[in-house]
């Protein structure tokens, strides 16, 4: 595939904490980690999805003013950002592995309509649905 979405990002309250979560607990890999003064462009990648990068952005000056950044942090912390979906081969196995790693699950694995799903949040408040792929 040569065309399509390359990067989509989420806001996180702390990029080091987010890196530890997405790489250390979820098993993503760092794609780019570039710092320039206070600014840090940080993207991670699912090991099985090399064409897509997930950006982990800190709302902060100079990208936005301090008051706006605080508002964005507030929205993330309330869990009001758009839903994210992670596809896995086996939801119960992934849940067990991630739970042991300290991931905060908001819904235990449940089977419905023939597929198992669970929910978790990252430390900032971004909510993920984890769904078992259907073959």
């Amino acid at each position, binding site marked *: 595939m040569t065309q399509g979405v390359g990067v989509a990002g989420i806001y996180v309250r702390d990029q080091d904490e987010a890196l530890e979560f997405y790489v250390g607990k979820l098993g993503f890999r760092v794609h780019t980690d570039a710092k320039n003064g206070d600014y840090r462009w940080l993207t991670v990648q699912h090991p099985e999805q090399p064409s897509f990068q997930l950006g982990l952005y800190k709302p902060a000056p100079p990208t936005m003013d301090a008051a706006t950044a605080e508002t964005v942090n*507030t929205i993330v912390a*309330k869990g009001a950002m758009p839903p994210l979906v992670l596809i896995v081969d086996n939801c119960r196995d992934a849940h067990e592995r991630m739970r042991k790693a300290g991931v905060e699950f908001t819904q235990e694995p449940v089977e419905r309509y023939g597929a198992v799903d669970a*929910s978790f949040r990252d430390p900032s408040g971004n909510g993920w649905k984890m769904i078992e792929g259907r073959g």
Partner: protein
Amino acid sequence: MGMKPDNSRGRAQDPTLLRRLLRAKDRMDAASHEEWPVERLANVSGVSEAHFARSFKEAFGAPPHRYLLTRRIERAEALLRDTDRPIIDIALETGWQSLGTFGRVFKDVTGESPTELRAREQAATHALEVVPHCYVSAANRPNLTMAVSEKRRREVSDSRDAEDETEVPK
């Protein structure tokens, strides 16, 4: 509201506090059929009982127990729509202790009795199978902007047998 002093208006809530309040909301979402006294919710959030309800309402726009009520009604609606289980079973499973209270609160919130809602929903066709379950569920959440007792007062002015009751029946 009104003339009551509201010192929360001055400054936005701290994001780390909000993240912890979100944890209490998540826990109610995950087990809305359970009892959630303020003490339990405050513990989840690491907030004092005295501050929890006000902080939660400021963060999420509804007092914690009204929020819980909307989740219970939402779940009951889904079970009425998607299953043929007896209404008493659905009432008990979604956190009510009696069919009478469930039926009354359900009608106060949705405007229909459980039986009426089931008949209407099951007759309609649904195209939401491709949307992840939780988002369908959220889309059907009742938009309860006032206390149930207040809603009832406004809608039923001549209720002779209206009882005083808490939003979340024990």
